[in-house]
């Protein structure tokens, strides 16, 4: 697909099926390449991290979102702006911890898993683990160390897909000047 220049702030339409199929082909190829699902999960997380550290620039350049001042604000931006911009969905935010350092994203529909049925020999596979890597990589670039993991998945028979986000610490080294 050739890229149109001067995209501006409008989002670019693309067949979500092409995206789903490309991701599906990636996952099946990784399953062939690696002996066990844990290695596939690691590779998906690593790929997602590498995507996330670049995607954050695209997001910030186009969304006019400023500095988030707490994790609740970050959650709102992730669920209402970022997921909407890139996946066309708006997860709901639930299950806040009392300290405000953990929350869950509930995905009613996950475009990555359209048409997907997990075979029985991949019970440990976290199919959409790329998303966890993307979230971790993107937030690291804005100085937040977080853990993102799937705790429920419709592919495994759960009622919803749930990503649990946990704030670990603020990354203080190399903080851009003027951003304390």
């Amino acid at each position, binding site marked *: 697909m050739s890229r149109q220049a*001067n*995209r501006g702030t409008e989002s670019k339409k693309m067949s979500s099926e092409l995206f789903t199929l490309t991701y599906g082909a990636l996952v099946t190829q990784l399953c062939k390449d690696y002996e066990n699902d844990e290695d596939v999960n690691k590779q998906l997380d690593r790929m997602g991290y590498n995507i996330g550290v670049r995607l954050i*620039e695209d997001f910030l350049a186009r969304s006019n979102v400023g500095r988030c001042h707490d994790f609740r604000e970050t959650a709102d931006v992730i669920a209402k702006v970022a997921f909407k911009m890139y996946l066309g969905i708006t997860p709901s935010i639930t299950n806040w911890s009392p300290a405000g350092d953990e929350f869950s994203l509930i995905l009613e529909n996950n475009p990555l898993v359209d048409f997907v049925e997990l075979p029985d020999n991949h019970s440990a596979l976290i199919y959409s683990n790329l998303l966890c890597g993307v979230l971790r990589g993107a937030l690291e670039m804005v100085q937040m160390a977080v853990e993102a993991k799937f705790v429920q998945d419709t592919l495994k028979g759960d009622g919803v897909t749930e990503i649990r986000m946990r704030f670990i610490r603020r990354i203080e080294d*190399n903080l851009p000047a003027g951003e304390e």
Partner: protein
Amino acid sequence: MAIFSVYVVNKAGGLIYQWDSYSPRAEAEKTFSYPLDLLLKLHDERVLVAFGQRDGIRVGHAVLAINGMDVNGKYTADGKEVLEYPGNSANYPVSIRFGRPRLTSNEKLMLASMFHSLFAIGSQLSPEQGSSGIEMLETDTFKLHCFQTLTGIKFVVLADPRQAGIDSLLRKIYEIYSDFALKNPFYSLEMPIRCELFDQNLKLALEVAEKAGTFGPGS
């Protein structure tokens, strides 16, 4: 041209991209008789005018050519020391061309990391809480505009003091960086940007920005 240069600085203060408009710089050529009425000195491998201004020649200008032959830093085209040449009366009359020295690549790297520290100092010395670093630096001949992203990348544009529309240009450069540098899978983060599409799109954006025109004595 009303936009003079663009610098992209990574979060460690390293220069990862630099562009200059190639407008011809003022040069002055003059034939001299002995003794030379300008005082020359050696500075950073260049021979500069230390004292004496006339006929377009200014303090700080470098010797660019002698008798029409370009000098090589502090050496003449045939390998002699430039500074010794005017001391010998047998060399006169002599034609010398002076002009503002161009920044070398190393000097641009130094200036980028110097600005990185100045930016941080501006934030740290601020009397107000939560201050950004330097966003605009004004001189009588140019204005430096700086936009730092939340991820710590700095986009710096040097323009005429009266040039309008630099804020939208900085955001446009950020979009171009996001599109044509970061989405190039063979571009490594924090490294110099050598992407042809980035170059092309940046030049387009600069052409658009220049049409924003100038206004007033300064914004």
